């Protein structure tokens, strides 16, 4: 396990991840800020709170924990976490979505160290995670599989095919975290297809242990992960993290329109200021990269 950081330190890292996420999306001119910001605290707790057992120097060592980003469009936040963790140079973040960049618009195992499964087509991650958990048992290795999902992908049938199959195969060490920001692409989840609710009961019916938390409260996230690590020795665990889409940038928060577009220069500066970046730093960044 990695060294554990204090909640205060985790908050600082999360702020940094939000800043880098928005910088990369701004420079790319496209991308998905809303769902990247909502899952940031979960990612930071996983990678810097002592859970994801990964080694940036040896990204594919056989007994590493598998983190599958099923909601592949949250790539900018995931890349920022991987960069801060030391998987690759932070400068690469500013090539996001550009021709020839190893940082593809949706995460790709072919391109980026630290990525376990190529995603972008929603609703496939839980099945792939299940396969990885089955492989663990075959190989008799000591790792866990974390699957990071969105609420929108609970609408995909494949998600539930995986959920029920996990029970049948008595899979353990499989932990799913659902970023429940209640917004999808067109509108609020409750408006488009509210049938995903209640979430906990569905997973329970499939034989999963469930935990419900505020996905921006580090104390709750860490506690939930502790519990999940323990319980997942026996059965798969689903954590429903209630989150705010666009968390940390007021004008993006809880607004469907900020699902999949980049801020313009003015809006970008506004976001940076809110995240506590000084005007000098913003200017230096823009002068260097925004040509």
């Amino acid at each position, binding site marked *: 396990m990695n060294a554990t950081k204090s909640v205060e330190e985790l908050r600082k890292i999360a702020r940094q991840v939000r800043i880098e996420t928005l910088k990369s999306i701004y420079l790319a001119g496209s991308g998905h800020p809303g769902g990247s910001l909502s899952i940031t605290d979960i990612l930071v707790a996983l990678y810097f709170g002592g859970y994801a057992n990964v080694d940036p120097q040896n990204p594919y060592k056989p007994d590493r924990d598998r983190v599958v980003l099923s909601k592949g469009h949250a790539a900018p936040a995931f890349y920022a976490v991987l960069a801060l963790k030391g998987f690759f140079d932070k400068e690469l973040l500013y090539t996001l979505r550009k021709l020839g960049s190893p940082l593809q618009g949706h995460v790709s195992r072919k391109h980026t160290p630290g990525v376990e499964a190529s995603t*972008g087509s929603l609703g496939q991650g839980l099945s792939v995670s299940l396969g990885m958990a089955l492989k663990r048992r075959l190989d008799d290795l000591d790792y866990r599989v974390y699957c990071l999902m969105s609420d929108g992908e609970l609408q995909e049938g494949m998600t539930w095919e995986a959920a029920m199959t996990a029970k049948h195969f008595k899979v353990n060490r499989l932990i799913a975290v659902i970023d429940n920001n209640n917004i*999808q*692409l067109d509108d609020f989840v409750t408006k488009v297809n509210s049938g995903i609710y209640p979430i906990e009961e569905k997973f329970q019916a499939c034989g999963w242990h469930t935990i419900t938390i505020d996905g921006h409260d580090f104390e709750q996230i860490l506690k939930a992960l502790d519990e999940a690590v323990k319980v997942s020795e026996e059965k798969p665990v689903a954590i429903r993290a209630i989150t705010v889409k666009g968390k940390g940038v007021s004008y993006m928060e809880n607004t469907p329109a900020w699902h999949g577009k980049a801020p313009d220069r003015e809006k970008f500066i506004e976001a940076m200021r809110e995240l506590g970046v000084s005007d000098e730093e913003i200017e230096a960044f823009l002068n260097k990269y925004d040509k």
Partner: protein
Amino acid sequence: MFLYTKDAPKGDIRKVYGETLVELGRKDPKICVVDGDLSTSTKTAMFGKEFPERFFNVGIDEQNLIGVASGLAYDKDRVVFASSFAMFLTGRPWEIIRQHIGYNDLPVKLVATHAGITVGPDGASHQMNEDIAIMRAIPNMRVVVPADIHILKKVLYKAYETPGAFYIRLTREKFPVVYPEDVEFELGKGFVLREGKDVTIVAVGLMVSHALDAATLLKEKYGIEAEVIDPVSVKPIDGELIAESARKTGRVVTIEEHSIIGGLGDAVISELAERYPVPVKKIGIPDTYGESGTAAELLRKFELMPEQLAERIHNWLRSL
């Protein structure tokens, strides 16, 4: 007869799709539309706004989307339009499309947006270069790839009036206007957009305007006179028109923003093999995946820009 010039204005095909759906919805109160949480991108939301009771946004569940569209259409007394991005509309639920819409020739008009590499920065997961191939393979499925907003509108009306299954392929990008507003479209009938005697170029979609530009360059740079054909529908395809042109030119090039496996190129080759075999060069996306980049950068990477096309066609003709 054809409007296209090098600086032709661009038309927003997705917007025209949305507007035409609304028009059809006003005309026929039975039409239904189904989408999968992409209605703001595919523009079916325009229909949803005016006819909320006949609009079903089922969420991110494309197999369910196709099942629901099929259920609405099984009695064949309602025309159903179903939309999503090409990857998710045809890829994820392919077998369900085959089982219901294809097998029973249901009046479901699958209209996909964001096809091909020009979806750009989203990368390979969203760049659908195989949809023409997999949709062509389904018996009963008619496959149409409109080249501009004017023909698109006619195609949508034709799909509405014609019983049975359709796949209509659109992209994210705006297209230059090629056809006059009053163009007539008949399923399986193509257009000769430019006459020539040295080589026949068959292209669909965005590649029609690129082929026309390439033809101009071939003439200017090398004195090669290319005939340019837009078959509009890839299935059924206007084999007679293409073979007739091949008889004159003796050489055929196909250009598509799609894999060279199973798409327009193979449809053209099948027709020519039976009618009048000549050497054919297939130009499109090679047997590989795309990557993130702008639409223009990716078109250049895959050598689909007009200057590159002219060069490639010239080199191929020389090599024969």
